[in-house]
């Protein structure tokens, strides 16, 4: 078999021979059993690759759809969402501009035009035009003031009333700007964002929320910190620092910080990954779209990462527990050290990792591919007992991996 024969076989397989060359090659195939056998072997390889299992698991489409909805903004119609944010931004900008310029206008304006005969008509704004057909300055002011719910009258006392209304309006304008800066915006397509689920009232609405796409510092409110502290059985918490609302980048707290020292999350803008410390499990549940919200006072406490005694999972294995019977057998089955995992929660799954690990050094990362439990630091703990670690994750169907750097 020459190299040229080999190349001919490849070209024949891939349909790259001219008709005459093809006919010549097929004639050779009839006369050369070795050549024919070689071609048959390669054909079988191709067929084996094209055949075989290609059935997606039944839950694939539901998972994919959920992932799409998360990226699109939790299932809300994108158009509506964009509209609402854009409208909010425009309203804030209009209010700000009006707050800055309308007082000057009201104070200094000497209108070159006579006041409209019909004040009601003046308020109709868009229909009013100047002599040349262009919108008059007065009409423009009327539109802006109308948008703010202000009077457009130019009488002195009414001007003062207008200024009073503006004084009342200005703080609200600042509030709108503040809200715009801190509330999550509609995510870009393809970008993963971190945003707690907006829905159920948790009683913690005053808690600072990390803005989508740029996660900064996030501290649990005292009630949440209490729940976390109770779950971990730690001592009284130090004061909870309030986050700076617009810190440019987050800095992860050093490993070993207590929960009440604050929780920091970071979004890697380039990779689009949300990296969270393990204390963020409750928020992770909300972010992942799961119904589990440990932030809710009515919800379950956040299960911490708990060291596992030997004998539950083998070294190097990863198991998940989702059913009540297995969950309760693990937690209450003569394993008091696992009680902090808490009672069965149908919205969560227990993840058990076997090995000689320092559980306090595990790091949880939500990537577009799923959950990653980074054990790089945890593996550098040769003195740890050879049991493993258990933690809870939202039951969102996303895969879990344990990763260790080389």
């Amino acid at each position, binding site marked *: 078999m020459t190299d040229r024969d*080999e*190349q001919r076989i*490849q070209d024949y397989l*891939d349909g*790259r021979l001219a008709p005459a060359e093809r006919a010549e090659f097929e004639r050779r195939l009839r006369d050369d059993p070795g050549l024919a*056998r*070689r071609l048959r*072997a*390669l054909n*079988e*390889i*191709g067929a*084996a*690759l*094209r*055949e*075989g*299992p*290609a*059935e*997606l*698991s039944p839950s*694939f*489409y539901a*998972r*994919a*759809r959920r*992932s*799409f*909805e998360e*990226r*699109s*903004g939790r*299932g*809300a119609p*994108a*158009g509506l*969402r964009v509209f609402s944010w854009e409208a909010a931004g425009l309203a804030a900008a209009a209010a700000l501009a009006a707050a800055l310029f309308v007082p000057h206008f009201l104070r200094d304006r000497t209108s070159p035009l006579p006041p409209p005969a019909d004040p009601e008509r003046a308020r109709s704004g868009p229909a009013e035009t100047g002599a040349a057909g262009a919108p008059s300055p007065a009409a423009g002011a009327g539109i802006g003031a109308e948008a703010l719910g202000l009077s457009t009258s130019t009488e002195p006392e009414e001007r003062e009333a207008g200024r009073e209304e503006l004084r009342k309006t200005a703080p609200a304008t600042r509030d709108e700007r503040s809200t715009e800066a801190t509330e999550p915006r509609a995510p870009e*397509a*393809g970008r993963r964002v971190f945003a707690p689920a907006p829905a159920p009232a948790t009683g913690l609405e005053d808690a600072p929320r990390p803005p989508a796409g740029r996660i900064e510092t996030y501290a649990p409110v005292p009630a949440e910190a209490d729940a976390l502290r109770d779950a971990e059985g730690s001592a009284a918490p130090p004061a909870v620092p309030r986050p700076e609302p617009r810190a440019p980048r987050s800095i992860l707290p050093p490993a070993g910080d207590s929960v009440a020292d604050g929780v920091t999350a970071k979004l890697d803008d380039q990779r689009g990954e949300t990296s969270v410390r393990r204390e963020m499990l409750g928020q992770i549940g909300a972010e992942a779209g799961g119904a589990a919200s440990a932030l809710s006072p009515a919800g379950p406490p956040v299960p911490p990462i708990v060291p596992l005694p030997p004998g539950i999972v083998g070294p*190097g*294995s*990863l*198991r*998940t*527990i*989702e*059913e009540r019977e*297995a969950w309760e057998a693990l937690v209450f089955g003569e394993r008091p050290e696992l009680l902090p995992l808490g009672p069965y929660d149908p919205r969560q799954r227990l993840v*058990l990792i076997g*090995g000689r690990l320092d559980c306090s050094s595990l790091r949880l990362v939500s990537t*577009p591919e*799923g959950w990653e439990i980074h054990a790089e630091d945890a593996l550098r703990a040769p003195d740890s007992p050879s049991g493993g670690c258990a933690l809870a994750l939202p*039951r969102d169907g996303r*895969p879990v*991996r*344990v*990763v*260790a750097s*080389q």
Partner: protein
Amino acid sequence: MDGLREPDGRDGVRSPGGEQATAELLERIRRGDAAAFEAVAREHAPRLFRLALRLSGRREDAEDLVQETLVRALPRLGRFEGRARLSTYLVRALVNLWKNRLRSRKRSRIVAWVFGSREHGEATPEPADARPSPLEQLETAERAARVRTAVAQLEPTRRLTLLLREVEMLSYEEIAVMTGVPVGTVRSRIARARDELRRRLGDGP
């Protein structure tokens, strides 16, 4: 739709009606319509999964790859303004994602923790060729499994090139564009991959 398909059975969106329907679906996807997303996903995911499974070698990885491809790529398709065929675009997106993952795994390795023995919950995926079947089917399945195992051991660029040819039935030129190498490189990679497979499978030197 048979009349609308290409001879090799790929891509059924070439008629004006099909393109219009697909364009409408894509527009709805860009607006965040999950139903439209699922409709397009159901049409393209099986084919993408076949390639992803051969590339990654693991069902979980393959499903992740397909899901990520669809979720990331479909809302962005408007940038192509219909010039690229949807299926080719999705394959290219999948290949790029797979290559990115390959690069990231060179920096970090997935250690031995895998979904080995799930206590409960989702069933552990089983290879389809493990199902009871007649002897002939079993032999075919065993051979297919041997081939897939051998393919998984190929050098990644050769594996990718061969799969784009054998599974996706792309031309050398299409593969060259998709992988960013000259046609001659595509040709040599395919030839070497086939030769290596043939040797691994014991079909003689």
